[in-house]
């Protein structure tokens, strides 16, 4: 599969009141044609900043893209002209936000707002746009009779489905979805996830799905990248990462979530908190919380290595290279989930 989007060494900072927030720190990530990739991390990990950088929507000030390249269709979006970027936004790459009202205008009917997008991108007649908008509404499970209704007459899940309809209306190549279901109830979330899965199959769109929910990723994505303090610490296919998580942070994350299939009566949380993004540790960003940290972890930054014997499973951690391996960690990785 070909890479549709290639992020290389992206570094983004926010400069506020004499402090520098290191939000994204040399992040590299690829998204292939037709694939869906989950970007998982806790609050402040830098997920939203990464997505906003792709479309250059990071607020400046205080945000600054300090370095890196983002190739889309062979063009570096970070160096491209404003006019080209505008045609990419919403046209070739569209974004879905956590709060559907970010994308909806309260004073226009939902149908009108979808039709407007279609008209803009396809240069078709009003009637044609309306007909297509009605189709889109039905596709996301909303009867077309509700075309004339306003956002406030819809529930959260319905509004999010309208936003999804708007974002696929112009048949984008990539959809960036930032926590699209976090604000929804589980039964409604399940409907929206199913819808996204269907659309993905029908339209072969690539999807970057940002979430903190490992369950959502397992249901929707082909691959997953785990983010911590502005870096990808582990990535691979869903079976690679979910069956045998190998980064101490990922292992801790899985130990922290109660699941329905869980038998144990005690969770095994990660001690401590995420490091302050204005004062990142000198060594591995996870070293202050890592139960396996050794001296070098506190002074040097680990690079990315491929796990031996696995096709795409990558890790940002020293532990697999140690001559004297940590027996406990090796045991945990081998046992898997």
């Amino acid at each position, binding site marked *: 599969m070909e890479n549709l989007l290639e992020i290389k060494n992206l570094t983004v900072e926010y400069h506020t009141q004499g402090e520098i927030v290191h939000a994204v720190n040399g992040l590299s990530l690829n998204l292939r044609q037709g694939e869906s990739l989950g970007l998982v991390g806790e609050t402040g990990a830098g997920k939203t900043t990464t997505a906003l950088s792709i479309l250059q929507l990071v607020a400046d000030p205080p945000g600054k893209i300090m370095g890196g390249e983002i190739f889309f269709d062979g063009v570096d979006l970070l160096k491209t002209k404003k006019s080209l970027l505008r045609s990419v936004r919403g046209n070739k790459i569209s974004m879905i936000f956590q709060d559907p009202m970010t994308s909806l205008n309260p004073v226009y009917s939902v149908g009108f707002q979808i039709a407007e997008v279609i008209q803009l991108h396809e240069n078709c007649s009003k009637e044609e746009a309306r007909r297509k908008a009605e189709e889109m509404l039905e596709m996301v499970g909303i009867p077309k009779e509700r075309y004339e209704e306003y956002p406030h007459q819809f*529930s959260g899940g319905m509004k999010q489905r309208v936003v999804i309809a708007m974002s696929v209306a112009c048949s984008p190549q990539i959809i960036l979805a930032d926590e699209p279901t976090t604000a929804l109830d589980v039964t409604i979330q399940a409907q929206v996830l199913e819808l996204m899965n269907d659309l993905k199959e029908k339209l072969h769109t690539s999807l970057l799905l940002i979430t903190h929910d490992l369950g959502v990723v397992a249901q929707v994505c082909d691959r997953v990248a785990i983010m911590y303090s502005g870096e990808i610490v582990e990535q691979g296919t869903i079976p690679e990462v979910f*069956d045998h998580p190998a980064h101490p942070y990922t292992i801790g994350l899985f130990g922290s979530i109660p699941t329905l299939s869980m038998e144990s009566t005690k969770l095994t*949380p990660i001690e401590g908190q995420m490091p302050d993004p204005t004062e990142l540790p000198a060594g591995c960003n996870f070293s202050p919380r890592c139960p396996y940290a050794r001296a070098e972890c506190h002074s040097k930054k680990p690079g990315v290595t491929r796990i031996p014997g696995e096709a795409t499973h990558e890790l940002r951690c020293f532990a697999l290279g140690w001559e004297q391996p940590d027996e406990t960690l090796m045991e945990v990785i081998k046992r898997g989930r």
Partner: protein
Amino acid sequence: MADNILEVKHLKKYFKTNRGTLHAVDDVNFSIRKGETLGLVGESGCGKSTIGRLILGLHSATSGEILFNGQDICKADAQQMHDLRRQMQIIFQDPFSSLNPRMSISEIIGEPLIIHKMVSSRAELDKRVLELMDVVGLSQRLENSYPHELDGGRRQRVGIARALSLTPQFIMCDEPVSSLDVSIQAQVLNLLKDLQAEFGLTYLFITHDLSVVKYFSDKIAVMYLGQLVETSASDELFRNTLHPYSQALLSAIPEPRAHHKMQRVKLTGELTSPINPEPGCRFAKRCLYAAPYCTGQDPTLQDFGDNHFCACFRAEELRKEAAGIEE
């Protein structure tokens, strides 16, 4: 039963709105035994927090009884309520908005001790506050910090320490970990479990997250639009889910596993409005199994053995059907 710390009987709370009467809690019955945890689950707006607020006397009930150690909260006067409050505490979802931003951590934790005159000297107060901070795993150096200086997990620990200060018997936890990151959620859930074991606490644990209740509760009550649709021991509920809504809710949870795609029970139709609801099963518009006789009158909780109750006209029939297919 004698060892029930809390009994809720035919509890109703209606709100008058300009579109009609909103049935937030509509004839709810349940009990919690001392030292146990009841998990109250349901989706947004179904009435969980309203039940919680009724129990704490923060709303007055439209009708019904709430017996705390046998005493009816709904009939308590101001002085009785003041005394009851000492026994019942609450931990809120949003640890930020629930803490006074102008008070230091030690003042927040110590305030209930002063209000209820539980300490006789400044030295005793300080000692007790530090003890409480230690119990919930807050470092002493944070004593003079303010809420905005703490992260969500620590703020929630402050809320827990405050709730524990009066050595209550009963704590209501309203979505206590929903606003926290997963790694911090686990720390707080473990802490709540440890405290329960240490102090013999009884919890009413309100949440929309079934995986959290499964981990946390002895008994579970599933709520839909103001009514309980199923109550049972926790493991029994997951083993033998009876109500169509509980089944749909369970099947909608995305499991964090590879090779385990969701087999979702599809829900169709629209949510019923809680305003002036027609008599009949509130779930009928979305239920796969809805029959004509599901509307007209409300289903009530029926005993299916082993303290497993379900309010569905077709539960027995559906259970037999399911068993038949498996045989």
